[in-house]
């Protein structure tokens, strides 16, 4: 079971001080947060992707590569990569490059994004959201698996004889998750490919999350990837902790009350009751999250949203420390109890390479158009 954090990179005013961080501060804070996550033993750091204020989450592979250079072990992921408005050719190239630079510590989560104008800014139409996710991913899937691709579709200029470079590290594409809050089509897509399915979980009641995960598991089995309980499931979560739960509530409430997304709406108590948001003691967080698998089955990845709504960096780092030292070690033990042997862990680069029968170099060498010789046989005959 993997535990980690995910961030959307919002630049939000701290409502308790009125101070708004600069973009520069927030970008550097994101790096500090990722390094802290590795330091306290978490497994995954995932960043979102947005192309409008108040977010600093554009250019995710730049951020992830920079973090990758300063960390050793943590898996670098996304939450989410905008498969709708980003050219799948660029996704193929950028993340394969990131895979090489970080020696395979990469996976991705595909999502459709949430801001209407972002679609037209990138020449797309939000009403095509599902169709874009389907077509773009189908192309991405091929670009990582076929050296030379001829392709034609509805949303992008055709490709003839195209090779996406670099080829995936060791001949193994990064593992892909598909994230969706409410579209059964995306659960269906994840199941079709035998990819992972991630439910953001933090904005909706568990009854809904459960429905989406069950659909994905059922269809994963239908498409012949294995039994439903071996499908690869991830969930989001959201917590704020203090040793005394009343202190946690008192400290977090001003952030909650005006937070983007749900601020000025339901009360903190209502939202805690209706969604997985848990504000309280570390033990309360453990109890709540150890029970998630009763709803969705034994799962593979749990990500927590920790740095949002204007929480200052020092508090965020402190929260990640509590998460990594007091909560996750206990959750690892709890989640292992009664977990059937045949339920797999989330795929990693190492496990995918092993499953593929070992690493292979898949470099595609350019051919000289005139002689037909490649660079390597030219080298050999010199």
């Amino acid at each position, binding site marked *: 079971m993997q535990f980690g954090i995910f961030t959307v990179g919002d630049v939000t005013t701290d409502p308790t001080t009125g101070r708004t961080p600069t973009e520069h501060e927030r970008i550097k804070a994101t790096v500090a947060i990722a390094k802290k996550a590795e330091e306290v033993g978490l497994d995954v750091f995932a960043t979102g992707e947005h192309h409008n204020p108040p977010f600093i989450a554009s250019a995710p592979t730049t951020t992830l590569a920079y973090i990758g250079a300063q960390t050793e072990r943590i898996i670098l992921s996304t939450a989410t990569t905008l498969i709708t408005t980003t050219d799948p050719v660029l996704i193929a190239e950028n993340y394969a490059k990131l895979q090489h630079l970080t020696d395979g510590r990469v996976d991705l989560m595909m999502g459709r994004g949430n801001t209407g104008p972002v679609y037209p800014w990138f020449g797309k139409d939000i009403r095509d959201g*599902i*169709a874009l996710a*389907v*077509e773009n991913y*189908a192309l991405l899937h091929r670009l990582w698996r076929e050296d030379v691709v001829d392709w034609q*579709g*509805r949303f992008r200029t055709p490709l003839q004889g195209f090779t996406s470079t670099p080829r995936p590290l060791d001949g193994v594409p990064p593992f892909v998750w598909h994230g969706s809050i409410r579209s*059964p*089509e995306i*659960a*269906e*897509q994840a*199941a*079709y490919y035998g990819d992972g399915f991630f439910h953001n979980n933090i*904005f*909706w*009641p568990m009854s*809904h999350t459960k*429905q*989406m995960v*069950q*659909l994905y598991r059922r*269809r994963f089995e239908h*498409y012949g990837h294995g039994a439903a309980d071996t499908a690869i499931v991830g969930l989001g979560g959201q917590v704020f902790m203090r040793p005394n739960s009343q202190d946690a509530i008192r400290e977090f409430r001003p952030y909650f009350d005006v937070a983007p*997304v*749900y*601020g*000025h*709406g*339901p009360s903190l108590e*209502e*939202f805690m009751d*209706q969604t997985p948001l848990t504000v309280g003691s570390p033990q309360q967080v453990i109890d709540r999250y150890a029970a998630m698998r009763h709803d969705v089955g034994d799962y593979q990845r749990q990500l927590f949203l920790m740095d949002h709504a204007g929480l200052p960096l020092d508090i965020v780092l402190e929260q990640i420390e509590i998460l990594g030292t007091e909560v996750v070690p206990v959750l690892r033990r709890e989640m292992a109890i009664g977990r059937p042997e045949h339920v797999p862990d989330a795929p990693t680069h190492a496990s995918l390479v092993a499953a593929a029968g070992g690493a292979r170099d898949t470099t595609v060498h350019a051919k000289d158009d005139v002689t037909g010789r490649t660079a390597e046989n030219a080298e050999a005959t010199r």
Partner: protein
Amino acid sequence: MTNPAPRTSRRIAVVSAGLRQPSSTRLLADRLADAVNRQFALRDVDVDLRVVELREHAHDLTNHLLSGFPSEPLGRAIEAVTTADGLIAVSPIFTASYSGLFKTFFDVVEADALEGMPVLLGATGGTERHSLALEHAMRPLFTYLHAIVLPTAVYAATSDWGSEQDGDGSAPTGLTRRIERGARELAELVTARDPREAADPFAVPTPFEQLLAEG
């Protein structure tokens, strides 16, 4: 596998957007519901009436707009409407149109959830001068939702509640006649149609090959 026999009873949802308690909007909604009940009884059709009083969901409706999901009680209210075979929808007329609360409720119902649903409209207001709000505001709202809006829509002004009956008092008033006519239209149409069965996208997803092919 054999399909279960279609339901013989019908489900009618009543949405009332009155703000006061007691409310004349609820009074009209109840009068319409009673009349619809009688009309179904004449046709030997059992009716399952579910009343949604929007005032009780006012906070949850705002929360839904902001958070994107309904509380459990609001979720049940929405389901009562979307799984109905017919709808009676009644709003007070405020500032030349239906009330904001009424609109908010139909804003959070899925856009295709009322497709093909017979709807009987009602509205209340201080004077008769606002009665056309039924035609220029409420009717287009439900037309947009692809509901089947019945020809008769019932408006009750304050004065209607005290209007004298014609002749010796045995004949119905104008309001009563309109209520009966609207109720008859709703019962006739709902009885003539098969019970609505809502599709569950989680039970039967669109196969991925079809999603790919549709492009």
